[in-house]
């Protein structure tokens, strides 16, 4: 059991509990008032389930937790803990991943029928939507509740450009956010999730767990649903860390792809998952994208990384990329078909270890920034509903390109266009 990131006090508090119906982990920075409202909302769940809420303690919290031991009479036990362990300093992302790991393992230890993680800062307070993520786990046979957020042009780009359409094309499930971060999972899925992965560092392992969710649902004949949670507040992006983000996110996705190859190769079409509620339109964010800088990154990659890309991409793709690099910024556009083939070729190179994996995913960065530039140029002045159409077109391109991936995956030496 991996509870290293949970302080001793919290472990003792959890130890006092025999079991729970639901474990809710709050990783997001929620105030004490909001947390109290989340607990109140959870108390309204039918059947009076026993609920354990693990809450990230904030620096701004007035009272030290000391003994926040569960109250026996209450159906909701609140156990605070700090994500950052002072004895082993880690980055916020690592802390968050370690927290996922702890919440899930505590959920398993308490034999919870469901486990829910609140990780995002959303426009609507979580008390308004936490029941959407938890109730189906207790009332229905649903195993995975994925979040759906209001679409904004330039948010969640890594998910929109690769993770979501790739998951849809591979596993046939149209899920907007296959890796959460807010999510609800059933006991059945939780057990399979934790049984299937025992090695690796905590952070990497937690990311692998998130990347394994959809494959496990599909390959294990489990049920998934999607809950609309409103507009999400995304953490600001630093362009210098894009390459490490790509490695952290896509590495586990490609590993899961390798592990479940037999399963996804059988899938031919995709289908929508059950929507638990209807989305509502959200206002678009403002701001200008520096397309010039993104295109410059792409051109720099074409100039200096061709030797490496030549080991990963077929000559036809390289030729197309070279042509794109010569285009002026106003005409810069990466066709979806090319982008999809690039991602599939990188997935294949990851599997075959064509080059060291430490180099493979960071070398995708200029291509990804090129795609972002192309997408931003296309949608800069587009209407709100154009985003959905644009991403749907991209997802379809992933689905249409799947035979290419399957052929290369099965016969990497023989099939090399």
């Amino acid at each position, binding site marked *: 059991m991996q509870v290293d990131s949970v302080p001793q006090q919290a472990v003792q508090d959890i130890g006092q509990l025999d079991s729970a119906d639901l474990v809710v982990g709050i990783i997001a920075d929620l105030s004490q008032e909001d947390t109290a409202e989340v607990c109140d909302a959870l108390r309204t769940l039918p059947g009076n389930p026993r609920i354990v809420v693990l809450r990230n303690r904030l620096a701004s919290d007035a009272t030290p937790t000391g003994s926040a031991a569960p109250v026996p009479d209450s159906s909701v036990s609140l156990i605070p803990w700090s994500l950052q362990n002072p004895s082993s300093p880690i980055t916020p992302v690592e802390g968050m991943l370690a927290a996922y790991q702890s919440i899930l393992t505590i959920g398993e230890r308490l034999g919870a029928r469901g486990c829910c993680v609140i990780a995002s800062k959303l426009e609507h307070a979580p008390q308004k939507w936490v029941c959407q993520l938890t109730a189906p786990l207790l009332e229905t046979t649903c195993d995975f509740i994925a979040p759906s957020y209001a679409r904004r042009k330039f948010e969640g*780009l890594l*998910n929109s450009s690769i993770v979501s359409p790739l998951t849809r094309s591979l596993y046939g499930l149209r899920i907007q956010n296959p890796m959460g971060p807010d999510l609800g999972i059933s006991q059945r899925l939780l057990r399979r999730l934790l049984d299937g992965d025992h090695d690796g560092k905590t952070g990497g392992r937690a990311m692998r767990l998130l990347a394994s969710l959809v494959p496990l649902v599909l390959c294990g004949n489990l049920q998934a649903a999607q809950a609309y949670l409103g507009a999400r507040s*995304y953490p600001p992006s630093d362009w210098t860390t894009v390459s490490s983000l790509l490695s952290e996110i896509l590495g586990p996705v490609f590993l899961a792809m390798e592990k479940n190859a037999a399963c996804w190769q059988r899938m031919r079409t995709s289908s929508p998952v059950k929507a638990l509620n209807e989305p509502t339109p959200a206002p678009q964010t403002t701001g*200008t994208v520096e397309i010039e800088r993104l295109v410059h*990154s792409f051109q720099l990659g074409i100039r200096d990384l061709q030797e490496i890309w030549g080991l990963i991409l077929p000559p036809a793709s390289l030729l197309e990329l070279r042509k794109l690099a010569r285009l002026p910024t106003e005409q810069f556009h990466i066709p979806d078909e090319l982008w999809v083939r690039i991602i599939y070729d990188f997935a294949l190179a990851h599997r075959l*270890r064509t*080059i*060291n994996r*430490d*180099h493979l995913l960071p070398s995708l960065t200029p291509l990804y920034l090129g795609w972002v530039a192309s997408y931003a140029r296309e949608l800069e002045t587009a209407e709100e509903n154009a985003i959905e159409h644009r991403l749907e077109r991209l997802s379809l391109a992933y689905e249409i390109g799947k035979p290419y991936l399957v052929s290369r995956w099965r016969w990497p030496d023989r099939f090399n266009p």
Partner: protein
Amino acid sequence: MWGQVKQALYQSTIRFVTRLASLVPGFVALFLALLISLLLAWIVGMVVRRLLSSMRFDERVSRWGLSSLAEWSPQNSPTLLVSGTVVCAIVVAGFLIGIAAFNSDLTSSLVRNIVAYVPNVVGAIVVLAVGAVVARYVARSVLIGAVNLNLGYARLLSVGTRWLVMVLTVAMALVHLRIAVGIVELAFGILFGGIVFALALAVGLGSKELVTKSLERDAKRTPADTVDEPLRHL
């Protein structure tokens, strides 16, 4: 007089022929040793190749993260590289055994010296091989990292790094081979320092304008500009 010259020439010829004849068994032994070692090398090479192929050695090597080894191998196959190395080692050993069969002080001491030198050669080869792999890895890391940081001189940095590692490796290999140790140390110091200095100059002078522009841009950029960037990747 002529008779004495004739006698001396006759005796020289006899001595020459006798010496030559005494070498013949040695040559025959060398020939036989080479023949046997070639045969043995062919058999062992084939066995090693088949064994490695059945183990899917090429795939394992790339799975162990040593894909660059394939790039150094004939036909991109580490199996061929290993079996070829085994074949060469057996042939060289056979040749040395054949040389030793001449049974003269010169050849014996030659063989003794060569055999005593073999560990140094093997050590140097290992150092060179490891150095080449490390140089490639580090150079790629620097190249990708620098491109991702939008540095215009990424390739220069990468090449410089590769040369630094290779110079260090070659110097270590030469020291291992005990070849002009003093000169190598001196030359290494000069060359290593020279490359670092050249890189510093090239980057410093070559990108002076770039750095100035970048600093100016950063200085002009207000916190609001940073917040305005609407891209959110994660």
